[in-house]
């Protein structure tokens, strides 16, 4: 699965809105839209570090880096390429 789809699928599995036809774009802020609960930031961080084998430093823990599919993908790509 490509990165974008993998991240999207992880978020979809953790949504806390239960309408069948809920949709969000890759630029939607999932926290502001109330799509995930308060545990999600920590879970997402654990998932990213574990599944992609990267370490996210405190400087990168800005919630904005985790708030949209695109931002999460950018963060993973940045970390993977070793640019910090």
């Amino acid at each position, binding site marked *: 699965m490509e990165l974008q789809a993998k991240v999207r699928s992880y978020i979809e599995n953790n949504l806390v809105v239960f309408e069948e036809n809920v949709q969000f774009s890759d630029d939607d802020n999932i926290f502001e839209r109330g799509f995930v609960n308060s545990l999600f*930031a*920590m879970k997402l961080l*654990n998932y990213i570090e574990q599944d992609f084998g990267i370490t996210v430093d405190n*400087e990168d823990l800005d919630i904005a880096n985790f708030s949209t599919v695109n931002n999460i993908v950018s963060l993973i790509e940045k970390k993977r390429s070793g640019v910090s």
Partner: protein
Amino acid sequence: MNTKTRSIEAYRRQLVEEAHVFADREIRPFAADFDERGQLSKDLIGKMAERGYLSASFPERYGGLALDPVHYGLFTEVIGKACCNVRTLITVNTSLIGETLLRYGTEEQKNEWLPKIASGEKVGAFALSEPLVGSDAKNVQTAYRREGNKYVLNGKKKWISFGDLADFFIVIAGDRGQVTAFLVERTQGDITSTPIQGMMANRASHIAEIEFKNVEVPAENVLGPVGGGFAYIVSTALDHGRYSIAWAGVAIAQEAVNAMVAYARTRSQFGERLHQHQLIKGMIGDSITQLHAARALCRKAGELRRDRDAEAVIETSIAKYFASKAAMQLATDNVQIHGGNGISNQYPAERLFREAKVLEIIEGTSQLQQQMISDYGLQKYFVKRPNLSEERSGH
């Protein structure tokens, strides 16, 4: 399992067994006294530190015993069986504070604080709850503002375990919607702690209200990212706290079972031992079933945590919810089986009963666990099916 893994396993099992012996000798005989006097002995804290019991899950380089989550859980159980207050000291210092520092602390912060927690030189407290803010922790009113290279804290915290004894605090504070965590030393400024009297349980956990008045904290004492105090620090601390409390529930449940079995085998009414009465058998049977189920959930959560599985957080919440509820139920049934003696402080039953209730309230109340577990299940167990009405009408 290879030989090396097996020997590490055996070593960890042995550490837990030693802790068991220690708890039976050095803690259990004094538990009622701690509860009555409302304080723990400094001497005991020293003895525990010497053995690495304040840092059982920390890596050895910080003075810990490097127990993996499963063995750390078993360790928590043996301490919790002996005394809830001593277990609380471990929950707060090792799980809430230590584990969060290990995860988010800078190298300097880890080197500064973890060895001091391990050696008992410094006792910490986790200051989140407030007089007006409990479950809705994102809205803490304790405020911080940045001034140059430091932060200034103002506000009141309430129900803080070991708050009256602590040398330092992790303080959760807010600034215009942002929540940040700070490592604050008691000597850092105008910090007053007032012990809270009249507690039903956790009477020797030095629970206090704490007031911070214009306390200046250097920027390097921010724990985790600025603005990440809730999303990362509180979430992580409470996740570890819940794991500890789950095992604390197993501990109380096991104590309750041991006590009800012993009592039912010795006391007679109507010319028969209590255990010979069917209704008592029913209670004992149910209790043992609950106990085993609680332990199985805790073990599973421990294994997932050890394997860094993504489901570990939710399974921990499930284990905490179930085990705390089981502890309350079993402690209640234990009092029931003891009859009048269950109400008297001549037996441990009443203390277990009081202590059990706390577990359903701290580290996220049962209602908040239900909410999290339900959110998880509504997603995970939703089976998508084709829309039948559309199919039937031929669309």
